[in-house]
């Protein structure tokens, strides 16, 4: 258990990382390092996008599954790692 905590702390303190959010399968954020409103917004939107992405991948081949999703924008990059029950969202500024 503490191993995961350590990992999350490490990610949070990594260069350029703006925040990290853990979302459960219903789209409700469980753990976050950002403020409430931003978290809720990110959680809801990214959750839907991830579900859609996963659905797309699996529709093409049901034996396939989504490993991760990167969304690079002008200002920063949103990285999503889906799990069976959870979703990890990390926002990083890669150019820093």
């Amino acid at each position, binding site marked *: *258990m503490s191993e995961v905590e350590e990992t999350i702390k490490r*990610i949070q303190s*990594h260069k350029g*990382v703006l925040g990290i959010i853990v979302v459960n399968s219903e789209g409700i954020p469980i*753990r976050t390092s950002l403020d409430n409103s931003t978290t809720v917004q990110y959680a809801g939107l990214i959750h839907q996008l991830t579900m859609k992405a996963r659905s797309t991948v*699996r529709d093409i081949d049901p034996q396939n599954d989504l490993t991760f999703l990167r969304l690079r924008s002008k200002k920063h990059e949103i990285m999503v*790692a889906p*799990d069976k029950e*959870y979703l990890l969202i990390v926002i*990083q500024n890669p150019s820093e």
Partner: protein
Amino acid sequence: MAPKAKSVKPPGSTIGAKPSKMKGRPKIRDDDDMTEIGDLGDDSYVHGKTLVKPDDQLDLTEVELKEEFTRILTANNPHAPQNIVRFNFKERTYKQTSSVEQIAIHFALDGNMLHKDSDEARRQRAKAGMGESKSEAALSEAGEEEGGEGEDGEKEEVVEAPPPKKESLRNQFNFSERASQTFNNPYRERGTATEPPPRANFSSTANQWEIYDAYYEDLQKQEKAKDKTKQIPTYRKEDDKTKKKLVAMETASDDISRVTRAAKIVERMVNQNTFDDIAQDFSYFEDASDEFRDQEGTLLPLWKFSFDKAKRLAVTSICWNPKYVDMFVVGHGSYDFTKQGRGMLLFYTLKNPSHPEYIYSTESGVMCLDIHPIYQYLVCVGFYDGSVGVFNTQEKRPGPVYKSTAKSGKHTDPVWQVKWQKDDLDNNLNLYSVSSDGRVVSWTLVKDELIYADVIKLTVDDLPTEGPDGTQLQLLGCGTSFDFHKKIDYLFLVGTEEGKIHKCSKAYSSQFLDTIDAHHMAVDAVRWNPFHPDIFISCSADWTVKIWDHNYGNQAMFTFDLNSAVGDVAWAPFSSTVFAAVTADGKVHVFDLNINKYEALCEQSVVQKKKTKLTHIEFNPRHMIICVGDERGYVTSLKLSPNLRKVPKKKKGEENVGIDHEIEIAKLDKILSLVREPDN
């Protein structure tokens, strides 16, 4: 004469008859049947036997006239078709009706007789009967009306609508109606309101993968059910109890622990972003200036790996994972005799340069390690205190799974090299270690123990020397490194502190096959060439790197002086003529015998502070990078420039074929032949 009545011939019937001669009198036939005639007395008949032939009669000969024709009387209708074919929809073919109706109706007449008991007959009788009673009823009615009550006051003749039977006379026009109102009960309304059932919105999609998932789960359940039935029933109760406990525990535990895998992936992604340029360099950068420099190459520094807790400890050994080529293991310890402390065993991956994947802390410094070629989760480690341990990364133990103790034959001096060997006959894992106490020991992993067996003792002289009490002591040399031959299983080389290299066999435990006086100082590393079966390389603290052919042990094939104590040397896995060495002045030297037999192609300093000694070097089995460890605990990865990794050009069409061993061997042989003395 008796006139013969002509029978009325029904159509289609023929009368078997003999050919008759046509006569002028059409009424009479001349048949054989007519012999009863006996009318020979009839003159007119006899006279009448003159042949009168019509003009168009057939002329037949006597023989032909006598010919008998058979006529058969059958009941078949000659006009009925003989073959009616109908389309059979069931069989979808035309089928011949097997039997055709042969009935021919000549005359049909429908009669008008009824059975007396039939419905129609009864009805008619009734009608006829009623007609009689009609007159009777009129008479009786007239009589009644005079003295009867006239409630409706209408006299009408019954003639208009006669009743069907005498018994029930119904007067359809004299009827009375009576109505009454019943008491209506008052209406009462009663109602109850229940709580509406709880509602929840459910939405789902039916995708191909959802169906796949459902089937997969079902399959898993079935397999589990099968497994359960195989279990012994007596243990079930205990299992249930423990399972219940486990289930309760799992749901109560912190949810965060289930994100482990996702967290790892994200960490790697974040690192990839941070070290993006290095990752790009690793994959794509090729030093373009190498085209202009024929015999020189460069090393491009890539990632640098370090761990806080291991910063004071020197890197004592590096080993790449043979299967997952982005992973490598680093052992930390100390070479300093006076400063002995703990050690560390770190597993790194190139995908995450900021933090090791697995961390093991040890009491004594790690001096050497080796990853099992088949079971890559097993790592054997040699410690400074002389013991040997085996770590299993699949199990979550903080320490080694096996460890040799003083009782179980551990070395009395630091273990300088360990190597996994093939499984023995009982399929037990097998490893070898060499140490300064002069023993090469083979360890076997049996169940949960390490069992040792001395393979050979490194004796210094053939004659035993005199000990203090006059006992014969066998002086033992100190082994510092060894290497096993790639192809010949039993053959291995041991380098010693005295500078000698012994060629040994696993079979002979008391004698060496050969001894080579290789160096003036301790031999730090001995390595067989991965391609050529006869060549090996050795490096030593006496500043030299030497290449030998084990058949000619008296003289080295090549000698290179590197101006500083050489810490380690390694052959490249992709070419038989490329090798690299690291020295105490912080430089990496890369040689390619094919290009330059006397000088290094590249001499590059890879350390920040010039005083840092480089301790180990390893080539990655697949990618063109090397990993260099130094005494400060840093591991640096470097990429070889194109000049340093030249492989013989492959023929067209064979681009995807792996390294051709024979070509490599031939290449090296060619070079060696130039060096070897002509009379050898």
